């Protein structure tokens, strides 16, 4: 189902398609920024302010433990958020544009 050159142009120029592409990258970039801030922030705290992570929650547990494990969990949850968004929003929009191609 390859569209011909003229309809390809029509899709590429259509506002729906342009919106789809820009929406995809804004979601991606926001999520990328979040993981970068979390990870680089963690490295900077480890490098410059270890004492912060040495603070205790209870007599044997430091903040370093939940923070470290939390980053692992956050990394996974962020990929989950992306999948959820893409499955529920992005794929529908793609399908709508594809339907238009077959109907025109």
């Amino acid at each position: 189902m390859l569209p011909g050159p003229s309809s390809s142009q029509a899709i590429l120029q259509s506002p729906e398609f342009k919106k789809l592409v820009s929406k995809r990258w804004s979601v991606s970039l926001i999520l990328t920024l979040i993981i970068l801030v979390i990870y680089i922030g963690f490295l900077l705290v480890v490098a410059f302010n270890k004492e912060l992570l040495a603070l205790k929650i209870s007599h044997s547990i430091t903040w370093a433990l939940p923070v470290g494990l939390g980053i692992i969990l956050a990394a996974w949850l962020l990929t989950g958020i992306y999948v959820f968004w893409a499955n529920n929003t992005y794929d529908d929009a793609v399908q709508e544009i594809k339907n238009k191609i077959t109907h025109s």
Partner: protein
Amino acid sequence: MHLLALLLQATTTPAASTLGTANPVSMAMFFLFVAVTLYITYWAAKKTKTGSEFYAAGRNISGFQNGLALAGDYMSAASFLGIAGMVATKGYDGLIYSIGFLVGWPLIMFLIAEPLRNLGKYTFADVVAYRLKQRPVRIVSSVGSLLTIAFYLIAQMVGAGSLIKTLFGLQYEIAVVVVGCVMTLYVLFGGMLATTWVQIIKAILLLSGATVLVILSLSRFNFSPLNLFTSVTQQYGDAMLVPGGFITNPFDALSLGLALMLGTAGLPHILMRFYTVPNAKAARKSVFVATGFIGYFYILTFFIGFSAMTLVGKSTIENMDKGGNMAALLLAEQTGGTAFLGFIAAVAFATILAVVAGLTLSGASSISHDLYVHVVKRGVSDEKGEIKVAKRATVALGVLSILLGLVFKGQNVAFMVGLAFSIAASANFPALLLSITWKRFTTRGAVWSIATGAILSLVLIVLSPTIWVDILQHEEAIFPLKNPALVSMSSAFLVGIVASLLQPEIAAAEKFESEKLRTYLGIGAE
């Protein structure tokens, strides 16, 4: 990145443990694993005829299966034994490594996976070269790929030889030859389909083995992690539960962190796996599944490390191996007896086999698909000829990896994992990302960016403390950072952008617009 070096130092075995003697359970387990995987290879061989079957398992792997296989490809013996060992001897610092290894996965999801799946065919160079001039881009990207694979492979082979020697009491040379031959059989006859199932089985074995190990260990603490950590601080003080001396220079931390994070998104054998699923939706699901399993695995190694620290004892672990690489195995013996030790040892062996098989397949694809078809044959692909070359390349890489394993016996090759990640982050990742996202990226930009990333990684690591001081025994390093990624990766981006802006390539920019249908809608994707 000294995990593997420490692995290599593991040789002597005190009498207190049965480590290093032939363990009937691990022998039986290992032979069972090889028998089952070779049977799968036989089954896969019948389904592996065409190019897309050999390189991409016919694109019939499901998202969940591919997620497990990605996890299998990524969880190496170095991370299982090495990170558990670092936690067992250094405490919290070991976790900083595992976090670095994990955070690359979200980036693969957000930036790479779907465009890669839609635009490419068999290798990541397909995507870099998609709208650029094929020959120059294919040549440099396959050099980037092959360098990454070569260093990773050497580290794995040398690690395998020493590990197996320690685990089974088998001679180093025999171990290297066995690993080389078995993995060549997988790839040669079973292609991607066999390799994928080897990864899946290995991932399940490793995850379940590590889970049982953690359950057995926590049972000694009434299943309360709190009791475990209390016991850690009682024996070794509070210092074990906070970041210690691992990171002293913030630039070192940042450079290593970037290498681990972005290098993951530039590993050819990982990227290649996205072509095994039918579409972008399945590719995205496989990253989610892989990230979950890998994250879970690192959490397990964290508990394994601390359990080993208290139950086995730091000094016992360090007596056996300075880097602590035997921590997980000693813990297995202590909590589950000799039979369980045998099981975990066999899992470690299977882990190495699976990782080298994945590396070899991606190396062979780069040689046949990128170099033979697109450079030698100028893109006129005759499928039979291409597969023939791929199979010859597989045999050549198998022989080469055995030879390299033998040549580097006893050498300090730990820096090679760091170097592989640095080249992946500096040569492969910037060109791939720019090609996917930046309209004005040009052939010249790609070539210069990849060359800059690869050459700077190689040169700077020689001048860095990792080689210049630790191996060549000079007083002071010429380049201050232990891992060059911060400099080499930023330079690769900068050079790629500047070279593209200096000489625009109109055809490439125009094709960027038309490829959007394929990138975002999957129209025309293979």
